[in-house]
């Protein structure tokens, strides 16, 4: 057990080091982009109507813009690590402070969307793979294709139109009811929040589930082709036991990795969906920052999104490692 613990720790350290390396590369790439842009960095932002001269001057000092490139890079790295991501021009406060208000909302939306996405996608994939080439399979494949091909913001609008404005089943925007919320009981408040969360999360989930279903179907079909499935049948196990206990247990392993891989697309969708549903999260903040030419916020949001992806992928790899008994104790 002692030796096992060491190898496990070794793996964890290696995986997290890899995550750190990619994060470092991401920061470097943003720095390079900042300096590749035409004109002096921050020149266009100095023109921004929101950028006061003091803020611009402070950023110049902080990021050492009059120093040689390598020094600038060093200071940039140091600042990012320290948590000094610059000042938002529009909000006149540190970028990270601006994020604190909005990150929570985006996190809730993303998490809800992920749960729905994988819930729907796995269910569909299993239904399809247990009866390959049947009518159910073909219909679900078609539906997956359609949802996979739909622009997420348009789907949001259509859902908003049908379920929100036409049928009034769900509210059409925001996180909570602006007028009634404070006077509701805690239970009713939760319901209100869920009702507001439903449409944006569903929009993101439907688009993601199209891809997830396809993936899960392929993984399960693959697992069912393995020898041990035939052996399980030979023992007299029911069809259901064979599919769920033997096929799916194996086919869910690659799905763990898929969680990490779907995150970038999900976060991209979040920006659009937050705009459609007026959801006060990082996405909507970034879009308004663009129109306000509040570059530090835009860059900070990209960095934060990238770090989330890197972290999620590391977490998924670590989870996979522990979920698959074959790799659990391996080096």
């Amino acid at each position, binding site marked *: 057990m002692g030796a096992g613990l060491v190898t496990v720790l070794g793996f964890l350290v290696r995986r997290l080091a890899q995550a750190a390396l990619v994060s470092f590369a991401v920061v470097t790439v943003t720095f390079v982009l900042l300096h590749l842009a035409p004109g002096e960095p921050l020149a266009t932002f100095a023109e921004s109507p929101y950028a006061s001269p003091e803020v611009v001057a402070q950023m110049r000092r902080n990021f050492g813009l009059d120093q040689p490139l390598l020094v600038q890079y060093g200071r940039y790295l140091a600042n990012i690590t320290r948590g000094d991501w610059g000042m938002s021009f529009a909000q006149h406060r540190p970028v990270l402070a601006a994020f604190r208000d909005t990150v929570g909302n985006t996190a809730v939306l993303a998490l809800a969307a992920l749960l729905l996405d994988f819930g729907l996608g796995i269910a569909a994939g299993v239904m399809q793979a247990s009866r390959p080439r049947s009518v159910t399979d073909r219909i679900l494949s078609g539906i997956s294709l359609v949802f996979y091909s739909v622009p997420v913001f348009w789907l949001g609008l259509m859902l908003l139109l049908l379920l929100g404005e036409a049928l009034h089943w769900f509210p059409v925007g925001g996180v909570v009811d602006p007028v009634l919320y404070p006077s509701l009981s805690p239970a009713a408040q939760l319901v209100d929040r869920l009702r507001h969360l439903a449409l944006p999360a569903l929009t993101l989930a439907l688009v993601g589930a199209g891809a997830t279903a396809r993936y899960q179907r392929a993984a399960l079909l693959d697992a069912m082709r393995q*020898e041990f499935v035939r052996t399980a049948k030979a023992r007299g196990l029911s069809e259901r*036991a064979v599919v769920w206990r033997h096929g799916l247990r194996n086919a869910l392993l690659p799905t763990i990795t898929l969680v990490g891989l779907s995150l970038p697309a999900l976060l991209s969708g979040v920006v659009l969906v937050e705009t459609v549903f007026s959801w006060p999260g990082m996405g909507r903040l970034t879009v308004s920052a663009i129109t306000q030419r509040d570059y530090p916020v835009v860059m900070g949001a990209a960095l934060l999104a990238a770090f989330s992806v890197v972290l999620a992928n590391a977490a998924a790899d670590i989870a996979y490692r522990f979920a698959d008994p074959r790799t659990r104790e391996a080096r």
Partner: protein
Amino acid sequence: MSAPLLSLRHLTVDYATDRGTARAVDSVSLDVASGETVALVGESGSGKTTLALSLLGLLPEPPARVAPESRIEYQGANLAGGDNASWRRVRGREMGMVFQDPSLSLNPVLTVGSQVAEVVRTHSKCTRREATTRAAELLAMVGVDSPALRARQYAHQLSGGLRQRAMIAIALAGEPKLLIADEPTAALDVTVQAQIVELLAELRRRLGMAVLLVTHDFGLVAQMADRVVVMYAGQVAEMAPAPVVFSGAAHPYTQGLLLAARGGAGSAERRLAAIPGAPPAATAWPSACRFHPRCARAWNHCRAEAPQLERVSEGHDARCWLVSEPAGETGGRPS
């Protein structure tokens, strides 16, 4: 004579392939009595594995198709052409199967013990705890050391021999009356092979099970078989009690196999390869006697008409013109 446990009549299996329909098993009839061990011997391509799979309804249909005239009678009831529910009543409970490669046949993400226990629970009503205890007992019965510990381990943590023992335990968990073993030692090291053979022989004695042993290893046949059925090109070439086969086999193919087996040392596959030529493809069986292209003692009639399976002596049948009388012409047959 009591009725046989398993009775196959005219079992025929066709496969749909790119090159046409292949008849992998051609009208095979054989019996397995209660408690008897029958060895099904042949090269790869003889149809023996297809036959074994058909006994539990495990052939993928399509592309395989069991011909409607086939009868697979277990305790008198015909299983052929049945639906999934009727097969499930038999699988694991009446007939168990041990497959060739235990590393592929065990689910890698479930513990070995849980795979044994699930069979116990499928075929008898007992609690989870009872099933786990029974699983450990079964593992002990097949000679797995520290059965309680091993039950909690995964397939990749066990050696080849232990895996095969686990597979046998799983096959026995439903307390079947017939055990079908498809090349149970082929994927194992030579030293481990001997242990598994010992185990199978002992289990047979102890549990009184009938065994259908599909193999090309004559060592295994010698140690365990009561009767031997030799298959070639989808048909039964010869069928006799084991001592008869070893002392006086009638069919040239069987004689060739025995010669190759007794001959040099080395793996069973190498011994079998000592018969010149290769088995014919199932889409193009030779005309007349299917073995004649490779037979050293073939004569005119062998190329003209296909021989039928005929009685040579008590309990001994062979499909060869060397032992049966062709209607009409008697001249030209070598003495």
